[in-house]
């Protein structure tokens, strides 16, 4: 009935590891996926209600951290994956915003506002 660490299953070793699910080192990066899920949910919001500032900042931070997660020691592939998706969903939103801003509907609104403010 030896209980040496060698007899711990791989699952137990993972659970008790210094960057495992008992620590913030696991949950903070894992939780970042909520940003991706929120981003995917936001694809359903109309483009005129999206914040360009927020989405470009998410793209920038997503891209930089995608790069850095392969440069830090040790490489952090979960961090790489989540930031890649943060950048991806952010880019889709930025695309939608830019598309909207080039649309006729938006240009009409701009003209109307200009007319109102100069009247």
């Amino acid at each position, binding site marked *: 009935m030896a209980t040496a660490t060698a007899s711990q299953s791989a699952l137990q070793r993972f659970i008790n590891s210094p960057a495992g699910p008992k620590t913030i*080192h696991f949950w903070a990066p894992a939780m970042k996926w909520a940003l991706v899920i*929120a981003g995917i949910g936001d694809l359903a919001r109309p483009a005129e*209600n999206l914040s360009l500032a*927020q989405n470009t900042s998410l793209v920038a931070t997503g891209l930089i*951290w995608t790069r850095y997660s392969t440069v830090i020691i040790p490489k952090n592939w979960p961090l790489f994956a989540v930031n890649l998706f943060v950048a991806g969903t952010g880019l889709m939103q930025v695309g939608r915003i830019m598309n909207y801003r080039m649309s006729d509907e938006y240009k009409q609104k701009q003209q109307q506002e200009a007319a109102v403010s100069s009247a």
Partner: protein
Amino acid sequence: MSQASGSIASRITQKLGSKEFRNYITSTHFWGPVANWGIPLAAIGDTQKDPSLISGNMTAALCVYSALFMRFALAVQPKNYLLFACHFVNEGAQLTQGYRYLQYNK
């Protein structure tokens, strides 16, 4: 390399020119958090804009995210105070936006 009799200005310039500081400025320990500052700055800018632009989902996610990363920044080795500051500010900004969102969407 004594700094005993330097004026404040010259001591500051000495510190900024030191190898230690230059290594820090060129590290991911510095630039990663710098990249993250875009998020709170965007949020602060957005507090001055119409609340219809606020995404409830994203704001809630960012509130949880910054709360966890404030802890993470102090739990890593070495502690990353710049990252902590970024997420501390973001927590405030996102909570503000969350409040505005709830008020607007009553």
